[in-house]
């Protein structure tokens, strides 16, 4: 069945599968009398990350913090204003690198809205066969492979192949979406809130399936979710985003066990606890995140941070290694001038 040969691993396990450096995406907002661009939404601002082979990188953050933009940037559904990407040693969309289309062969994505992400006019088997056909696989073979994929995601081909999306439940549709992402045998799958819209019981089934599929196909996941528990369950490393920037990134145990950035701490303490004695009494962060059109100067979290000082408005913190994780906070930057920071 394998005519699309999985791209062979070239750089060895130590080389990151996907390396993004300085990604930036600002969305212009037309305004003013003549409709000129007067404002920009700074959705993603100078973001760098590396995805290791075989890992699951969880991405968390409030809605509007740029998680989905990151997802769409990584698969190049939107073009970054600035920044470079390297896929297993090959620069993307550069003279000596690979094309965007080759990137998309190896990186695939599962969308949140299971209904909107399936063409209502196509049967399930046609949807799954579309991508292989577009890559030159003969129609009959593409359909055959689609049926195999359906079986892999737990949907009996004889029963589901010729149905239309509206005849499926939400969980079944999301399984189809996952199958579609796997149709090209990618190495990296970006799951953008892929299970968020599902019922809890269905969500658990799909999550377990994702774990199995990862094992079976040797996949790497970027798992984007606002659900901290799910991210903890699935991820090896976790990246915390706030207003288009990474505030903390590190191993899942480090992030969940000893969060350092005030935002991460606030986020985690907002989780409802199973233990009634540890119930949160008050909202740990006040208000909504500031408008990304005009983010605060210096540290973007300072407007809601209980430890904010004058220096936070002046100096923009950079990600700094603190051992188990990296944190972008002046309190952990030696000599930053923050009263809690170590003196140089």
């Amino acid at each position, binding site marked *: 069945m394998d005519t699309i040969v999985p791209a062979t691993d070239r750089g060895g396990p130590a080389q990151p599968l996907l390396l993004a450096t300085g990604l930036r995406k600002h969305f212009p907002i037309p305004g003013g009398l003549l409709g000129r661009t007067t404002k920009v939404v700074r959705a993603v601002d100078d973001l760098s990350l590396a995805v290791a082979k075989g890992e699951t990188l969880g991405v968390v953050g409030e809605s509007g913090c740029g998680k989905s933009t990151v997802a769409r940037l990584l698969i190049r559904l939107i073009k970054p204003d600035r920044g470079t990407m390297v896929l297993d040693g090959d620069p993307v969309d550069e003279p000596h690198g690979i094309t965007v289309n080759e990137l998309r062969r190896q990186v695939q994505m599962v969308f949140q809205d299971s209904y909107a992400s399936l063409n209502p006019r196509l049967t399930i088997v046609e949807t799954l066969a*579309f991508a292989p056909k*577009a890559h030159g696989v003969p129609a009959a073979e593409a359909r055959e492979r689609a049926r195999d994929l359906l079986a892999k995601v737990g949907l009996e081909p004889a029963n589901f192949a010729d149905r239309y999306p509206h005849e499926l439940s939400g969980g079944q549709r999301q399984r189809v979406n996952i199958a579609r992402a796997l149709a090209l045998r990618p190495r990296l799958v970006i799951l953008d809130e892929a299970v968020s819209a599902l019922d809890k019981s269905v969500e658990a089934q799909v999550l377990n399936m994702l774990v199995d599929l990862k094992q079976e196909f040797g996949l790497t996941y970027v798992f984007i979710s606002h659900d901290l528990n799910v991210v903890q369950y699935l991820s090896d490393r976790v990246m915390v985003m706030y207003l288009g920037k990474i505030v903390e990134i590190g191993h899942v145990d480090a992030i969940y066990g000893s969060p350092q950035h005030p935002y991460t701490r606030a986020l985690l303490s907002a989780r409802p606890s199973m233990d009634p004695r540890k119930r949160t009494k008050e909202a740990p962060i006040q208000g909504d995140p500031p408008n990304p059109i005009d983010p605060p100067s210096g540290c973007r979290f300072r407007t809601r941070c209980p430890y904010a000082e004058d220096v936070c408005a002046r100096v923009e913190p950079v990600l700094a290694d603190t051992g188990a994780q990296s944190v972008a906070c002046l309190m952990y930057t030696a000599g930053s001038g923050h009263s809690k920071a170590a003196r140089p």
Partner: protein
Amino acid sequence: MTLQSPSLDIGSAAPVKATPASAARGYWQTVRRRLSRDPVTLVCVGLLLLIVAASLAAPWLGLADPYKTSMLRRLHPIGSPGHLLGTDELGRDMLSRLVYGGRLSLFMGVTPVVCSLLIGGLLGITAGFLGGRVNMLIMRVMDVFYAFPSVLLAISLSGAMGAGADNTLLSLTLVFIPPICRVAESVTTQVRGFDFVDAARASGAGMLTIVRVHVLGNVLGPILVYATSLISVAIILAAGLSFLGLGVKPPEPEWGLMLNTLRQAIYVNPVLAALPGVMIFVTSICFNLMSDGLRAAMDVKG
């Protein structure tokens, strides 16, 4: 407790052999089934087919010569011997002229809509799918045409170009391109925003493939329905242009032109003078009802 329900449960794990179409119904099958249960639409379609068939088959229906004038038999009333619907101001057989008139009247109404559907649809889908500057350019040009009331635009264009069926077709096509383009653009923009188009892009498929497989199937329906609703407008407008003397030239039988030439007869034989309008009215109602029926039938999820 183990009440066995009949095997209607789609989700049952029981191995089902290759499910027939009854379980998995495509969109167009649903539409067809709904249409077949809509008597009003069916009657309209039947009536339209009858009108079209009669006007196409006119030469073989044993009708009188629609061009043969007779000074002696002018404006005979309905039911005169030999002339079932009487004669017109030049003594020509009304029944024959009404049946023959359907040819030009329908042709002049349907052709511009078909032409605008092709051109406007193409422009609108292009604008909607590409977005950005292309969209801006196309839609701004359409805005210029939108600055004219449609009747004014049709009449000014025909008036400037001069009378004649070809000029009428041209000006009506120009009049209908902008509205069809606008509908096509907005539907396409909407569809383009759905995740499945993004998913198709993410699969690395070419733009044309995406348009063909994912966009067209979802936008053609609404555009087509809108276009059918324009046919009745086009028929009335075409007849109106002929009525003003800007369309078909005499002595061709055409409903709008017949209304014009029979106007002098309203004092002599008023019923006769109104007959061609009845034909326009009936045809136009049928097209409108058909369009409504189509819209209702296509208004289904999935």
